Structures are given as C-alpha cells and as structure tokens.
C-alpha cells in the first residue's frame, strides 16, 4: 500500500464535463453536410467538385496565412475553415469559375471571420459574407445556372469552371432557370418531388431538400443544432407564404415550394444555425428565426432577386447583438411575486 500525495493534482471544481467538444461539433456538421454534398456532385459532376475544392482551398489557405505561425496547425484542425469553405461552396453555382470560388473562400474567412478577431467573434456568417461578396462582384457568373448533367456526363466540366483568373469567359454552355427564377419571372412552379430530391438546377448543395433534412436530423440527434432556429424560420416562412398564396396564388408560391426551393433549407438548417452569429438567449433565437423566415418571403416576393435567404440571414445576423441585449433571461428569483 502506498500513500503518495506529492503528485496530487489541484483543480478548481467542477471536475466533470460532458463529452461534447467544439471540435467534435464541427466534425458532426461536416458529416451532416456529406449526403447533400455527394448529391450535388452526382447531379452536377466533376465541375462542381472543383468549385468546392477551390472555395475550401481559398478558405483554408487564408486561415493558414493569417494565423500566428505556432497556431496554424491548431487553427486548421478546428475545421472551421474547412466548414466555412464547404458551406460557401455549396451555395455557389456549379459552373462558377474556380478562381472566383477561391476568392470567395478567401473573403469568407478573411473578411467574414479573421478581421473580427477570429473564431467566435464574427458578427456575420462567414460563408454568407463570402457569397455576398461574390454576388456583388461577379453578378453574372453568380446567377448563371448550368443544367444538371447527371452521372453519365460526370467527367464533363463546364469550360467556365476552368477559366483563367480575371479573364472574360463567355457562357457558351446551356443555361437553365432555377425553380425560384422561373417562379419569379415566369410564375411557373416546379414539381415538389423535383425540389425534394434535388433534381433541379441551382447551387451545388441546395438542391436536395431530403438529404439536407437528413443531415439536420443527425445534428438534432447529436444535439448540435438549436431546433428553434429551423422551426422558427421554416414555420414563419410557410405561414407567411400561405397568406400570400391565398391572396394571389398565380403570383406567389405555396408554403411547400417556399420551403423546398432555393437555399431555404441549406440556410435554415446549416447557415442560420451557426451559433456564433445567432442569438444566445432562447427567446432571442425565436425572434431571430422568425425574422429570417419573414424576410426571406418578403425578399422573394417583392425584392429584385428571386432568392433572399442570404440577405435575410445576414440582416438578422446584424440584429443579433441587439436581440441578445433585449432578451436576457429573467434571473431566478428576480422580479417575481410569489403567491
């Protein structure tokens, strides 16, 4: 029997911690995005993969370049840059030139995250900052949608993807309208099954509603996802669009189209739920989510763009500190009259 105490470790309580870590959360989200990503590649072919690669490379390289030398490995191991790059890539058109995707990734991490002071400090969702930058800078490329090629033409890459940086490249390929575009400009709806399965044109990762829901369900099971945000966004958007639909069903889509078209699911399940840029307080989270849902429908119905998820989320990101300030929970035992 030994009684050795010279090496006893002192530690301030509590000694126990639950097992989930922030790094694990990031890996969970990446895993949850995998089915939708693979579906995007299935539908859009190798070109889409190159776009994703470019955007991820832009994000990770920027993270590496602007991190302190001794922290570089650690920061890249966070997988936050990888995740931001992937999320951005999934919101890009499949035929976007690679160099643009690369710049988008760099801007997402540089202006979206690092300039704010790094992880956890940024006000806006980094991936959406990158996308907003691209949309402002390359409006034509960002709104040119190639049709789905399907697995038979997997190895056919659109010429525009490989265009040299800063060179003008004409879009000689075939373009196709997205479901939202045809809704907005031609008032033509798309079949629900096509929307759910992802068999439409659109951004790489946002076409298949079913697989996005599957990923989100996994995150819910792992308790990585705040259920209030998707519930609030999709619920309020569905409600608002139902009202519009009843007012003028020829002009405005119904709730199911609203939910399954465009970036709605990707945004509601994976972008708006970014904990850093959404409110901390449970009540604030509801306000934030309902705000996004209403804004999306407003922008889609009355704005100049067919799609409004990105701007809706960015706008509510900006409101987050204010929401947090005014929705602090009532402290236990304060302001209460006991019977």
């Amino acid at each position, binding site marked *: 029997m030994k009684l050795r105490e010279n090496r006893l470790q*002192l530690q*301030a*309580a509590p000694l126990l911690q639950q097992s989930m870590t922030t790094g694990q959360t990031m890996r969970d989200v990446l895993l949850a995005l995998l089915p939708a990503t693979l579906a995007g590649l299935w539908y859009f072919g190798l070109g889409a993969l190159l776009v994703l690669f470019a955007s991820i490379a832009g994000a990770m390289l920027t993270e590496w370049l602007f991190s302190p030398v001794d922290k570089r490995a650690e920061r890249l191991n966070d997988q936050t840059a990888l995740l931001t790059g992937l999320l951005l890539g999934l919101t890009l058109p499949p035929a976007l030139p690679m160099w643009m995707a690369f710049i988008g990734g760099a801007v997402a991490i540089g202006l979206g995250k690092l300039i704010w002071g790094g992880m956890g400090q940024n006000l806006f969702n980094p991936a959406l900052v990158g996308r907003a930058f691209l949309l402002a800078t390359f409006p034509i490329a960002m709104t040119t949608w190639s049709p789905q090629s399907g697995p038979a033409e997997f190895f056919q890459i659109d010429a525009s993807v490989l265009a040299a940086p800063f060179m003008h490249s004409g879009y000689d390929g075939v373009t196709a309208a997205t479901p939202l575009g045809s809704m907005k400009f031609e008032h033509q709806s798309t079949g629900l099954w096509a929307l759910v399965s992802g068999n439409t044109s659109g951004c790489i990762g946002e076409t298949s509603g079913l697989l996005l829901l599957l990923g989100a369900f996994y995150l819910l099971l792992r308790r990585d996802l705040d259920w209030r945000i998707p519930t609030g966004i999709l619920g309020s958007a569905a409600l608002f669009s139902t009202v519009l639909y009843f007012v003028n069903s020829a002009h405005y889509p119904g709730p199911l189209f609203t939910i399954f078209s465009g970036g709605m699911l990707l945004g509601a399940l994976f972008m708006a739920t970014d904990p850093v840029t959404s409110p901390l307080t449970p009540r604030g989270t509801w306000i934030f989510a309902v705000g996004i849902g209403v804004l999306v429908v407003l922008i889609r119905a009355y704005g100049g763009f067919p799609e409004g998820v990105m701007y809706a989320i960015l706008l509510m990101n900006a409101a987050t500190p204010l929401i947090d300030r005014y929705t602090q929970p009532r402290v236990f035992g304060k302001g209460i009259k006991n019977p």
Partner: protein
Amino acid sequence: MKVLSKLIEYSFAHGVHPRENKEATVSLPIQRMPFVNEYVMPLNQQLGAQCKPVVEPGERVVRGQLIAEPGAFISTNLHSPATGWVRAIDNRRYPGGVFARSIVIEADPYDSQQQPNAARDWRHLTPEQFVAEIQLAGIVGMGGAAFPAHAKYSIPEGQRIDHILVNGAECEPFLTNDHRMMVERPDALLLGIDILLHNLGAKSATIGVETNKPDAIDILRGHIRPDQPIKVAPLRVKYPQGAEKMLIKSIFDKEVPAGGLPRDLGMVVNNVGSVLAIADWFQYGMPLIERVVTVSGDGVRQPSNLLVPIGTPLREVLKFCDGLKDDVFQVVMGGPMMGTSVASLDVPVLKGTSGILAFRQPQSQRTREYACIRCGRCLEACPYFLNPSRLAKMARSRLYEEMQQYSVMDCVECGSCTYSCPSNIPIVQLIRTAKSQIRQSAGKVA
C-alpha cells in the same frame, strides 16, 4: 393512489445530467471508522467567524467536550472528537492548499472512547433556547457549505416558518452518504424532523429525495406515522437538485427572491445529515463530532460509507479503505461538481465533508480550450437563468461592474456552465474569481 404518487417527479428548469457513478457505494452499509492517533480540528471549518479555543495545549479532553466557542453569531461550537489530550493549537493543512489555525488532539489509546449519552429535553424550549441548543451542539449544514444551522432557526420578528424541507436530493455524483443515512436511520431522521416542527412552529415537512434512491423513498414512507405531517417528494435526478433554492422551486414551484433566504417564503431547508445531528443531540446529547463520509472513486481500493470522527486526517480514512491505488492523480473532498481537490492527505475531515474521492485520471478528458462559439449550452444549463457565456467574457476583461448588472452575485457556483461548455472554457472558475474580486473591493469601500 400510491402508484400515482410514484409517477410524480418534482423538478426545476435547466440543470445538467452528469453520470451518477454511485454504484460502488450505494449498497454498502455505513461502517464506523476506528479511532486514530491524532485529530485536527480547524477553527474555521464552518461558514462565518472563526471559533475561539477554550482549551490549552496539554489539557485532558473527553469525547464530546467543548473545545472552542463561536467567534460571533454566525459561527458555532467545536467539540473534541475523541478522549485524549490537546497537543497543540497551531496552523495545520486545510483543503484548498492553505493552512488554518487548528486544535490538534491526540487520542488516548487506552480510553474506551465512550459516546456521550444523556437525552436532552426538546419539548419545552423557547425559540431562543432552541437556537442556543443547536449552536451548543455545533451543528452546521452538512451538505457541504457548513453554514451554522442555528442561524437558520433564529427567525426575525415578523417572519414565521410554516414548512420544513429536508434535503435528501444528493445530486452530486459518487456521494451516497445521505442515501445510506435515510435508508439506515429513518426513525432518527423523522425524530429530528419532529424536533424541528415542534420548535419552529411549522405545520408540515417534506423530505425531497431524488428518484435514483427508490429504497430510501419507500423506507421513509413506510416509517412516517399517520399522525406526522411529513411527506416524501420524489425528485427528478438532475444536478443541482440539492441546491436549496432549486429544491424549493422543484417541490413548491416557488422562487426564493434573489438575495433572499428560504425563510422569506416561510421555509427552512436542512440537509439529511444536519437533521440527524439534531436528533442525536437531543436523543443522546451527542454534539456534532462525527459524520458520514462516502469514500469512492476509481483510485480507492475499498470504496465505503464511513462514520468518521470529524478531524480525522484523510490519510487515515483512506488507509482504513485499504489505501489508494498507486497511480492516483487527484483527491477531492466533497463531490466532483463542487468539491475541493486537496494537495495533501494531512487535511482533516471537516463538518462539511460529504465525500472523499480519489481519481486515477482527470475526470474530463478535454485539454484544449476553444473560443466561445456562443452555442448557448451554458444558458440552458444555468439553473439561475444567468448568461454564463457573457459573464465569462466580461470576467476575462475584468468588467466587474457590468457583471454585477448581469446578476453575477446571484450565481451559486454550481458549475453547470463549465460542465456543459463544449469549448472547455472555465466559466464558473472565471465567475468565482470575479465574485471574490467584487466582494473584496466592496469591502474596501465600506
């Protein structure tokens, strides 16, 4: 009706669910620990003022004899845990890596260490006499905080106590001492409640027990006489169910006002151990000189529930449990959520020591701290509905005044925030430091 009452589980909002880890000791009867050579009685082992010794080195003392008096109203008496001699009054090791003035008693190896045995009257006391009796017995809150119990029972003018709450939640993982006491001494516990009901003029009493102790719930229900206004309330297993304000919230759905006390709602909350100490004082005249301690954790060879004289060095308690395993990493007094880790096994068991835990590896496998990603898990863990994420950030920037606006002083330091943080941020530790800074600077101004 009985089946129905079994389905009811009282609970509060928020909180966390650490692994209970009570299997090792839950079915082990309480064993009396034999007397050892030397006892160390720190003078500041209760909350409040330090005690004043009334014995001199060299003096002969008998078991249960008064050795130190309260230094103020919020303070209590100390009694000798063994018959023997006062060997010294000097600075000895104390949990938390500091030294504290202590009375050192050498036990007489040839003495029979007889237990005091003279019943005391509890039916004909004035409220003041009752408060004095409790202070005389040196009884403190035995759940861990060691707040002098008599201070709870001295009710200011204009207030009255209607209800006695007995805290048998035992929400800290590993600990089973309250559980064993409820199972093994239900009649003494009920006698203690009777004494409290009678002397505080309360109408009824409730014993709150977490539902992971079904045997305790059944045994207590079986022992309550029909004429006793005592109920057992099953509580959901959740940390910190045993925090007194959470207990009241769970059972009565009432919130104790911030900065207030349970008696503002006409209640007094007592730990199971404290109620038993009251019963022992009036039944046998035995002051608080021993307590039940759970010895557990993977670093202990023989986990046990022990009745230990207060002042026994941890080394002796662990020796009695066949010693520590070779690769022990950490020894903790109390539970793993709020306990204090010790640097030396010379520190003694105190009135507030509910457990001694030895671990072979860190209880959290996480080393790396990430940035706060504002996930909000701490907000959903905090039973007081504070904003721990924000408080931790403010504490890092030393924004103490803003922290006060964010109600930092209402934090009870239960540690649920740190437990739930996926980024491994020492939230409660930061808040604790800030609170003591705030208290210090408030003291300077006054």
